């Protein structure tokens, strides 16, 4: 998989791949590295990078990941994820299909390509034993669904991307 990251504001591109013998390889700036990763605790990991063991720690806040590794701290923004996990202004939020609180996806009620009406139910979420239904903010066509049943989702993540119909163009760009 390809990654385009902003690491302390510096752009970095890398690709991770698994070869048939299950060796994991990272390609970064023309160099390939062998790696393995082990999850230790909730936010603690152990990376084996080219034979060297390196513990690291991470925490997410909004679209940023704070990562501590060998005495250095990095703030990483995932450019690929930024399209989906992006905080909008409160104005935008009214037009976004995003959970009001951290939640789990229970059911997805529409599929990609489907035409939806304003206020049509799109997805059922569960948070703290309460079910919430997310509805379409406007008429349009579902172009992408970003979460499947069982997924943990956070406020700000756009779960269903809808292309507005001609007569409902206002703010069309905000959810893309």
């Amino acid at each position: 998989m390809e990654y385009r990251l902003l690491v302390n504001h510096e752009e970095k591109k890398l690709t991770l791949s698994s070869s048939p013998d299950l060796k994991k390889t990272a390609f970064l700036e023309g160099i390939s590295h062998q790696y393995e990763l082990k999850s230790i605790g909730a936010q603690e990991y152990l990376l084996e990078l080219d034979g060297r063991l390196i513990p690291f720690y991470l925490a997410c806040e909004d679209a940023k990941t704070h990562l501590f590794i060998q005495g250095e701290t990095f703030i990483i923004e995932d450019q690929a994820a930024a399209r989906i996990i992006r905080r909008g202004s409160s104005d935008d939020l009214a037009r976004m299909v995003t959970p009001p609180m951290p939640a789990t996806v229970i059911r997805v009620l529409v599929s990609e390509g489907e035409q939806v009406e304003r206020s049509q139910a799109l997805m059922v979420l569960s948070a703290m034993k309460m079910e919430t239904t997310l509805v379409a903010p406007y008429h349009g066509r579902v172009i992408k669904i970003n979460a499947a049943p069982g997924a943990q989702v956070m406020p700000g993540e756009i779960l269903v991307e809808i292309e507005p119909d001609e007569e409902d163009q206002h703010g069309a760009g905000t959810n893309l």
Partner: protein
Amino acid sequence: MFKKILVANRGEIAVRIMRTCREMGIATIAVYSEADRSALHVQCADEAALLGPSEPGESYLNIDKIIAAALQAGAEAIHPGYGFLSENAQFASRCEEEGIIFIGPPASAIKLLGDKTRARAAMLASSVPVIPGMTQPEDDIEKLSSQAAAIGYPVLIKAAAGGGGKGMRVVSDPRDLQGAFTEATSEARRAFGEGAVYLEKFLDRPRHIEIQVLVDRFGQAVHLGERECSIQRRHQKIIEETPSPALDANLREAMGQAALNAVRAAGYVNAGTVEFLLDNEGKFYFLEVNTRLQVEHPITEMITAIDLVRQQIDIASGLPLAFKQEAIRFQGQAIECRIYAEDPETGFLPCPGKILFLKEPLGPGIRVDSGIYSGFTVPTAYDPILSKLIVHAADRPQAIERMRRALAEYVVLGIKTPIAFLREVVGSEAFRRGATHTRLIDESFNPWRPTAQMTDAACIAYAASQEMPRKYQMGDGVKTADHFPTPWETLGSWSL
């Protein structure tokens, strides 16, 4: 001995005081503001009393509210910590009036030492060396010239009316005095409408050395050696160590005796710290007395094995000092780094916020006096100190390596801290040589940018964590798996 003490402070120092109280079998009362409802010090006490809104004047600086809380809970004594009301003579006398023991010096000593002119006069009377200088402005160049010779070059010309560097000139050569005097006078006249100037001894990049003292109610006094506090940013200490690389046994004894003379001159009781400036010729000058427990007190505790908070409580309860000067031994080297919520890349601007993840260093010779935890939101209303990392080792080189190891293990995610910066300063050639002075950070580490050696590893670490099975991924500190992964599951991830 007291049965119950109210700790009139917050954060790491309140936690640290409560720990000693617990060891002494004394119950503690925490006080807190609305901003500190979930602060660590509230969780470490036996009882807690809400003072009021976050503004210090409505909470930690509010004498009436703190006294009321102490009376309500039946506290026999109040420990003020540092900052807030710790050097407030009015608070100390109010405690006295209410029949509560103030764990600190008498109000009269706080008052005397808080007045810089009176303190200077008291020190001169007790032959404690003060920075040589004139007490009155002078406009006659002949008289200034003879004053300068008496003080000794280099001298500093200062405007009587001013500050902020205006009308200030350093003169190293007697031949330059006339010219500098003319310049300073006209500059002062332009800036302050008054050209009067006076002279003071100029100290070039002095060291900031302080002596810890303990005085009991019976007049017995000991000093516990020095703390070297020369590494500062924004005129505030950030790294301290003891012993100082600049002191030998003779100078230590001379400064220790001067410190004892200083506190005796003020009728001092309890723990105190006498601050001196030390020039590069080994001459030292009285600066001020801090009439409280210092932030950096743990380094003295490490090399003397004396718990200063316990001593403060013992003295306040009327016990005599249990040891004499000859019994005090200094063992090894201790260094402290202060961990603030601030950004060394922006000139140390405070940056409070939520601590998303915290892991403190452990192991031989490590002490962390901390007021934070994972998930704690650092309030904006108070001093941005989070914790202090203290190391103790057999000698200075080992203490430096221990500090660097500990800083590299210190994980604070979510807010900016100077941890990486401190690691670089402690590892610098100047620090290793012991060539520290009060302008070191301004001259050598400002501006500062982290030297990132792990950027590539960080990229791979991040990307690899994104490819882990979804249930192990954590967002915003929320546990997303409904249970902690068992070894069967985590072992499995090696081959996935």
